[in-house]
C-alpha cells in the first residue's frame, strides 16, 4: 500500500467538500474493493475520505410507500437478513446473500458496490432489473441512466450516493452463475414484473457492464413465464470472453439464467400489495 492521507468527516456536507477540494480523493465505504486494490498497489489515492463516521445519515432500510429505501452505507448482510426486504423484495435479499463471503457481506456496502459498478457485481443487476433510483448528495439518478459501462457511473467526483430506492415489484427473481474462483457473477440475471413493466437485467456477461435485454422483456410481456423465453438467445457479440468462459458460453448462460430467474420470480410469494397504486419514492 502506498502512503495516503486519511480523512474521516462526520457529516455528508463535510465529506462532499473534502471530495471537491482534495486531490486524488477516493471514498472509503466498506472497502471491499478499494482496500485490496490498494494493498496490491494497483490504486494509489492520495486522500481517503472515510464515510464510516457518518454512517447514521446513510444507514437503514425503510419501507416508503411502494418502495424500499436502503441507506448507502448499509452492509450486504443487513440487506440479506432484513425482515422488510425479505417480505417485500425477497429477490433483493437473496441477491445480497450471494455476494462474496460472510466477511465481505459484513463490511461491503450497497452504495460502494453501485458506485464501483464492477461489471461482475450483483447489485447493479438489481438496480437495473428493478428500475431503482440512486439518490445522491446532488440529486437522483434513474438506474437506466446511472450505469455507464465498466466501472463507470453517472456520479461526479464529489458526488456521494446516500440512498438507493427500489420499487417493489410484483414478481422478482435473481439467478446467479458464479465464477468458481471469485464468486462474482459469471452471469447473473435479475428479472422483475411490476404492473406492465418487465425488466431483465444482466450482470457479469457484458463486455461493457450491466445491461437490459429488450427482446427478453418483450417476450415476457405476453406471459411472465420461462416458457416465453424458450429458444431466445442473445448474440455473443459484446459479451465478455476470458479464461472462465467464452462469449458464446456467456450468451448462452444469459438465456439459461433468465429462464431460471423468471422461474424463481414466479415461485416466490408475491410481495404484499405490490400491485396497489402508489408513488414510488425517488421515481418522481
Amino acid at each position, binding site marked *: *500500500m*502506498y*502512503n495516503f492521507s486519511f480523512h474521516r468527516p462526520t457529516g455528508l456536507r463535510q465529506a462532499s467538500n473534502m471530495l471537491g477540494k482534495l486531490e486524488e480523493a477516493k471514498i472509503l465505504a466498506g472497502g471491499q474493493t478499494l482496500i485490496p486494490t490498494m494493498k*496490491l*498497489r494497483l490504486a494509489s489515492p492520495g486522500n481517503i475520505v472515510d464515510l464510516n463516521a457518518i454512517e447514521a445519515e446513510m444507514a437503514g432500510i425503510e419501507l416508503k410507500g411502494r418502495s424500499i429505501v436502503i441507506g448507502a452505507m448499509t452492509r450486504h448482510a443487513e440487506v440479506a437478513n432484513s425482515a422488510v426486504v425479505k417480505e417485500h423484495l425477497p429477490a433483493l435479499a437473496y441477491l445480497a446473500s450471494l455476494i462474496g463471503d460472510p466477511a465481505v457481506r459484513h463490511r461491503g456496502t450497497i452504495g460502494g458496490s453501485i458506485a464501483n459498478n464492477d461489471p461482475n457485481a450483483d447489485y447493479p443487476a438489481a438496480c437495473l432489473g428493478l428500475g431503482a433510483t440512486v439518490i445522491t448528495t446532488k440529486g437522483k439518478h434513474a438506474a437506466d441512466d446511472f450505469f455507464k459501462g465498466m466501472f463507470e457511473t453517472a456520479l461526479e467526483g464529489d458526488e456521494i450516493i446516500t440512498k438507493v430506492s427500489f420499487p417493489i415489484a410484483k414478481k422478482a427473481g435473481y439467478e446467479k*452463475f458464479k*465464477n*468458481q*474462483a*471469485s464468486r*462474482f457473477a459469471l452471469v447473473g440475471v435479475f428479472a422483475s414484473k411490476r404492473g406492465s413493466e418487465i425488466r431483465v437485467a444482466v450482470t457479469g456477461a457484458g463486455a461493457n457492464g450491466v445491461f437490459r435485454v429488450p427482446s427478453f422483456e418483450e417476450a415476457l410481456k405476453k406471459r411472465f413465464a420461462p416458457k416465453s423465453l424458450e429458444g431466445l438467445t442473445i448474440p455473443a457479440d459484446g459479451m465478455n470472453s476470458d*479464461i*472462465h*468462459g*467464452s462469449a458464446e*458460453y456467456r450468451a*448462452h*448462460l444469459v438465456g*439459461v439464467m433468465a429462464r431460471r430467474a423468471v422461474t424463481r420470480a414466479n415461485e416466490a410469494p408475491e410481495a404484499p400489495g405490490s400491485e396497489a397504486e402508489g408513488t414510488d419514492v425517488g421515481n418522481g
Partner: protein
Amino acid sequence: MSATGIGAAVRRKEDFRFITGKGQYTDDISRPGQTYIHFVRSPHAHAKIRKIDNAAAKAMPGVVAVLTGADLANDKIGNLICGWAITSKDGTPMKMSAHPAIANVKACHVGDAVAVVIAETLGQAKDAGEKLVVDYEVLPAVADPAKAQAAGAPLIHDVAPNNTIYQWHLGDQKATDAAFKAANHVTKLDIINNRLVPNAIEPRAALADYDSGTDSLTLWNTSQNPHVARLVIAAFVGMAPEHKLRVIAPDVGGGFGSKIFIYPEEVVCLWAARKVNRPVKWNSDRSEAFLTDAHGRDHVTHAEMAFDAEGKITALRAKTIANLGAYMSTFSSSVPTYLYATLLSGQYGIANIYCEVDAVYTNTVPVDAYRGAGRPEATFVVERLVEVGAREMSMDPADLRKKNFVKSFPHQTPVIMAYDAGDYAASLKKAQEIADVKGFGKRKRDSARNGKLRGLGYSTYIEACGIAPSQAVGSLGAGVGLWESAEVRVNPTGSVEVLTGSHSHGQGHETTFAQLVAGRLGIPIENISIVHGDTDKVQFGMGTYGSRSGAVGMTAIVKALDKVEAKAKKVAAFMLEAAEGDIEFKDGKFTVAGTDKAAAWGDVALNAYIAHKFTGAELEPGLKEGAFYDPTNFTFPAGCHICELEIDPETGNTEIMGWTAVDDFGVIINPMIVEGQVHGGIAQGVGQALFEGTVYDKDGQLVNGSYMDYAMPRADYLPSFKIDTTETRCPSNPLGIKGCGEAGAIAAPAAVMNAITDALGTEDIAMPATPAAVWRTLQKVNTSRPAAA
C-alpha cells in the same frame, strides 16, 4: 486400546494454541533491529538483464541496501541445486542449469528475482523497489511443455539443447511392444495432467539473523525439512559451515510438498543478513506465492493399455512430457520418473510396462513434488485407461478391475516396486456397498427426469509411501538417505520429550507421536512433548513428505523407545534387586517376574538420574536414547474411491452427489486425524479435477495468479464424504503403518473424471472440467449426435 494410545481418536494437542491464536509462525517472530526485504521480480517470462540502475532506489528513504545477482556472484554464493540425479536412456546425465538465487544474466520466468531491496520497513522496501531501473531485453518465451522441444522453440538454458533435461525410460520396451502386437484390444488416451499451485494457507517466509560475535547464522523458515535445508544451504550454496547455521522451522501452516524445497528467498535472506549485519525478514504475499512456490503436476501424456480376449491387462505403455519449469527445483527430477513410472502397474498384475519421460524446461515457475508427487499422475493414467478400456469392451469397470487385481503378495511389478500386502478386492467391495452402486441405475434415471446427467466413476489407486529405503533411493539417484531419526529423553520426573526428524505442518504429530509413546510407556499423554523443526535441538532428520512420518518417523521413535525400555529395565533391576532378565514392563510398571515387587515408571526415571542404587561403573546415569530407522521397503497404501456426480447440461456445472472412500492405510494411529487427511486429500484431488489449473499465455504470463481467477475447492463445492477403511498390516515396519497423507489427492482426480466422462458419454474432456469446458464438450457431443437428445 487405551484412551490415548494407538487407535484412539485423541483430540489434537496442538490445536489449542492454533485456535487461540498462540501459534508461532515464522512471521510471528521478530528480532531486534530487523529489516525487511523486498524481491524485485521479473515481469517478463524470458529476458536478458542488460543493466540494473539502482541509484534512485538506494536514495529512497529507509533503504539499507540494494543487492543484485552480480553482488551474489561476487560473494561466491553457490547456486541452488536439484538433489536427485536422473540419467537419460542414452546414458547421459540430466542437464541441470545454473540456478542463482538472484538472476544475474537473464530472468527465466515471471517472478524470477532480479534484485532485492532491504529497508527499515516493508513499505519503504517496496517503494524503493519501484525506483529500481532494470533494462530488460525481452526474449521469446515458451510455457507449453508440448512445445518446448520443438525446433525453433526459444532456448532457455544453453546446457539443455531443445530444452530437454533428460529422456528417461523404465521397463522393457521390446516385450511391451510385443504384448501390444498380440493384444485383443488396445485402449489409447491423450492425457493432460494440469499444473497446480499448492496454496498452503501460510505463505512461505524467512527470517535470517547473523551473529557477528560467533560468525553464525540463524534462519527461521517455513520448511518441511529444516535439516535438509541446512545441509543444502551449507554444503552446496556455501553460505556457512553446517555447524554455524541453525535452521528453525517453527509452526508451519501447511506445505503439501511446496515447503520441502530450498528456495532462493531463504538463501538471499541469510546472505543479506550477514551483509547488512542486521536481521532480514521476508514474508511472501499471495501474489508472490503464485509466482514462486514450486507448482505441481504438469504432464502431457499419451498412454495405451493392451487387453487380451478375456479382459486381462497384458501391457501398458506411456510417453510423458513433464514440465519442470524454468529451473530444476530440489527434488523435481524424481517426481516424473521414480515417483511416477514405478506406480504404473496400479493395483493390477501387468506383465509388461514401458514408460518414457522427457523432462523439459519452460519459462514457467519451477515444478516439484505436490501432494502425491508423481503418484496422482500415474494413478490418473492407469485408472482412466482401465475405465475407458471397460467401456470400449462393454465390461463392467469394477469387474474388469477385479479380474486384474494383484491377489497374492509379495508381488513384483515390472517397474521396480514390490508390493508387500493388500486386499484390493476387499476395499472395492466395501466401497461399492457404501456407495450403493446397485442403486445407481435408478438414481441416473431420476436425474435424467430432472434434466441432469448422472455419472459414476471408480478409482482403485495404489501409492508408494514412507519414502526411504535409503539403499533403494540411492541406487535410483537420490543424493541423500531417506531414513528418519528420533531421540527419546526421559526427564527425572518421568515426563518425556521426543525429538523427531519429522516435521509437522498440519499433520498432528504432536498428538499421534505422543499417542505412540503414551501407549508404550503407560504414561499420560499430557506428560509427553514432541520437539521438532530445530536443527539445534534435533540432531538430524529428513523431514516430512511422501506420507513418511508415520511409517518411517514413528518407527524411529519405536526403536528409541526399545532402547529406553532396555535401559530402564536395568535401572529397575538395581532398584528391585532382581536380575535384569526377570524385569517385565507393562502399563507403566516394572515388575519382577513371579513376585509382587514393582516400581512405577516415574520412580525408575528418577532413579536413573539420582543414581543412588548403582555405581557409574555398573551403569551410566540418565535415561535418553536415540535411534535412526531405515526401512526395508516402501509402504503401499491402496484403496477404492467412488465418485457420483450430476451435470447440469444447460450450464455445464458439475455437482458431486456422493463420495465414498475405502482406504487401506494399515494400522491407524488416530482415526480422526486420518479422516481429516482423507478429507483434505479428496478436496485437493477434486480441486484438480474440477477447479484448479494454471493458465499461462503465449508470452509466459500466469493469467490466473490470484484467487479472483484461480479456483480453489471450497467446502460448499464438496459433499459430505463417506469414509471407511480396510486393514492389511504393513509387514515392513513394526507398527504396521502405511501412511495416509496423500491418498485422497492421488485417488480423487481419476474418480471424478471417470464419473464425468460416464455422465457425458465421451472421453473428450480434460481437467479441470470447469462448467465452461463441460458445456463446450456437450456442444460437440450434441452436434455430432443430433438424434441422441
